[in-house]
C-alpha cells in the first residue's frame, strides 16, 4: 500500500475544478471534492445529476473536460490497482454462463498473469466468505437474487484488497432487510478502507454513512426536512440518518433557500 501524498495531507481523492459535459450537456460544473482516508460517504443526487459520472471520473474510465483528479496523489489510471469497483448489476448480461467463483475471480485479473493461481482462488474464496456467500460458490451468477448479485459484485471488488471501494447503487432493487445487512458488512469493511457509494435514495442514507456528497449541477429542494425523528423511527426503525444538505457538497456548499 502506497501512501505518497504530495502535500502531506491524508486526502485519498482530490478533485480540482472538474468540468464534464456529455453531448454538449454539462453534467458536472466546477466540482471540487476532497475525500479523506477512512471516509464512508454516500453520493446522492437526482438521476442524470452526475453521480455515476463522478465515480467513473475517479476510476479514470472517463476524462474530465477541465480540472484535475488525483487518487493517492497519482492519476486515476495509475491508482486503479488500489481501487475496488462495483458497477450497477443491471448493466451486466443476466444470461451469461458464469459461477459465483468465476465472477469473483475477475477481481484477481492481472496484466502479468494469464491464469488464476491458488492464491487468487484463496483470496476470492475469502472475499466470498466475507460477504456471506460461501454456500453459493459454485452457483450460477444468473440464479441469484438481486441482493445476492450485489454481494457477489462487492466480493469481486474486494478480492484484490483495495484501499478505496467505489460502489454504484449497491442497494438498488433490494429490500430494506438486505440493504441493512449490506450496510453492516460495509461498516466492517470501512475500518480497512475508504468507501464511496452512489445511492438512488435522495432523502435517506444508512446510519453508518459518515458524510453525504450531494451531486447536482443545480440546487435541489428536499422535502424530507419536514420529517422529524419520530416519523423516521416509525418508518425505518431508526436505522437511518436524515441527510443534512448543509454538511458537505460537491459545489460551493449549497443553500436550500
Amino acid at each position, binding site marked *: 500500500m502506497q501512501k505518497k501524498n504530495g502535500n502531506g495531507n491524508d486526502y485519498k481523492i482530490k478533485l480540482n475544478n472538474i468540468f464534464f459535459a456529455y453531448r454538449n450537456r454539462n453534467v458536472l460544473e466546477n466540482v471540487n471534492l476532497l475525500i479523506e482516508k477512512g471516509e464512508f460517504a454516500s453520493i446522492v443526487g437526482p438521476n442524470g445529476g452526475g453521480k455515476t459520472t463522478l465515480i467513473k471520473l475517479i476510476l479514470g*474510465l472517463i476524462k474530465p473536460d477541465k480540472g484535475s483528479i488525483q487518487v493517492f496523489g497519482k492519476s486515476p489510471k495509475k491508482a486503479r490497482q488500489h481501487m475496488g*469497483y462495483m*458497477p450497477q448489476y443491471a448493466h451486466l448480461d443476466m444470461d451469461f*454462463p458464469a459461477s459465483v467463483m468465476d465472477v469473483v*475471480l*475477475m477481481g484477481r*485479473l492481472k*496484466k502479468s498473469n*494469464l*491464469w488464476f493461481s491458488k492464491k487468487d482462488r484463496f483470496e476470492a474464496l475469502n472475499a466470498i466468505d466475507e460477504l456471506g456467500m460461501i454456500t453459493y460458490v459454485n452457483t450460477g451468477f444468473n440464479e441469484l437474487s438481486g441482493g445476492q448479485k450485489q454481494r457477489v459484485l462487492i466480493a469481486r471488488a474486494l478480492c484484490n484488497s483495495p484501499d478505496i471501494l467505489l460502489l454504484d447503487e449497491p442497494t438498488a432493487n433490494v429490500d430494506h432487510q438486505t440493504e441493512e445487512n449490506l450496510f453492516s458488512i460495509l461498516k466492517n469493511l470501512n475500518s480497512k478502507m475508504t468507501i464511496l457509494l452512489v445511492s438512488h435514495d435522495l432523502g435517506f442514507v444508512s446510519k453508518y454513512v459518515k458524510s453525504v456528497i450531494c451531486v447536482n449541477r443545480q440546487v435541489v429542494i428536499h422535502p424530507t426536512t419536514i420529517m422529524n425523528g419520530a416519523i423516521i423511527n416509525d418508518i425505518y426503525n431508526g436505522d437511518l440518518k436524515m441527510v443534512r444538505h448543509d454538511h458537505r457538497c460537491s459545489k460551493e456548499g449549497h443553500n436550500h433557500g
Partner: protein
Amino acid sequence: MVDVFYAVFDPDNLFLKYAFIMGGLASICFGIIGTFVTTKRIGYLAGAISHCVFGGIGLAIFLQANMGLAWFDPMLGAVLAAIIAAVTMGLVSLHAQEREDSIIGTLWAVGMASGILLIDKTPGYFNLASYLFGDILLISSKDLLYVACLDTLVLCSTIIFFNRFFGVCFDSEFTLLRGINTSFFYLFLLILTALTIVLLVRIVGIVLVIALLTIPPAIASFYAKRLWQMMLYSVLLCLFFTWIGLGVSYSFSLSSGPTIIVLSGSVYLILLIFHKLIRS
C-alpha cells in the same frame, strides 16, 4: 440414412468424405467462437462481416479474370475482406457511441453489393447460390488444412487468454480497470470471428452464417452453467447438426446449408418452447 454411411466410404464420393471431415473439424471453432459471439452479443457484427466476405470474394474473382492476378484466389479475398471488416467494425463499436448500428448496417449492405457489382463486370458463369447458401462440392483438401489450422489457432488462443476473453465478454469495463487491454482482446476476438466466418461460408453460405454461429450456443445456454461448458456443448451440437444435416441433404438431394440450418433452427425452437412450458 444408412446409404450415407456407405457413401462416405465410397472412394468415388471423395467430396462427401471431405464434407464430413470439414463439418467435424469446423464444429470446434464454430462452437467456441459462436459462444463468444452469443455471450458478447455481437451477432449483428458477425452478420456484417459475413456479407463483407462476399465483397472480398467478388474482388478476387474480378482481379483474377480482369487483371490477370491468378494468385488472388477467392479464399484470399474472403480472408482479407473479413479481417478488414472485423477491425473496422470493431473500432467503430469501440469508439462511435452513436450511429453504431447505421455504420455497421451500411458496411453490411455495401460489402454485399460491391461483391455483386464486381461479379457483374467479370465474364463467365458464376454460381451465386453456392456462395449464398454454401456448397459442399466446393470443399477441397486445401480447405481441410485451413480449418485444421484455424482450429489450432482458436483453441490455443482460447486456452491461453480464456480469463481475458471471459472478462471482455462479461464485463469489459471492470476488466479494463484490472489493467487488461480490453480493446486489443475485443479486436482479437473479432478477427478470430472473421476467420471462422470465412470457413463457415464454405459450408452454409453467407446468408446462413449467423444461424450456425448462434443457434448451437443458444441451445447450449439452456444447459451450460459456465462459459467453458457452453463452448463444449456448442461444439458437440454443431457437430451433430452438420453431420445429420449433411446426411439428410445427401439422402434427399437437398442443399446442405439450408438443411443444416432448418434442422438446427427447428431443434432450437422446439427446445425453446419446451423450456418455456417447463418454467410456467
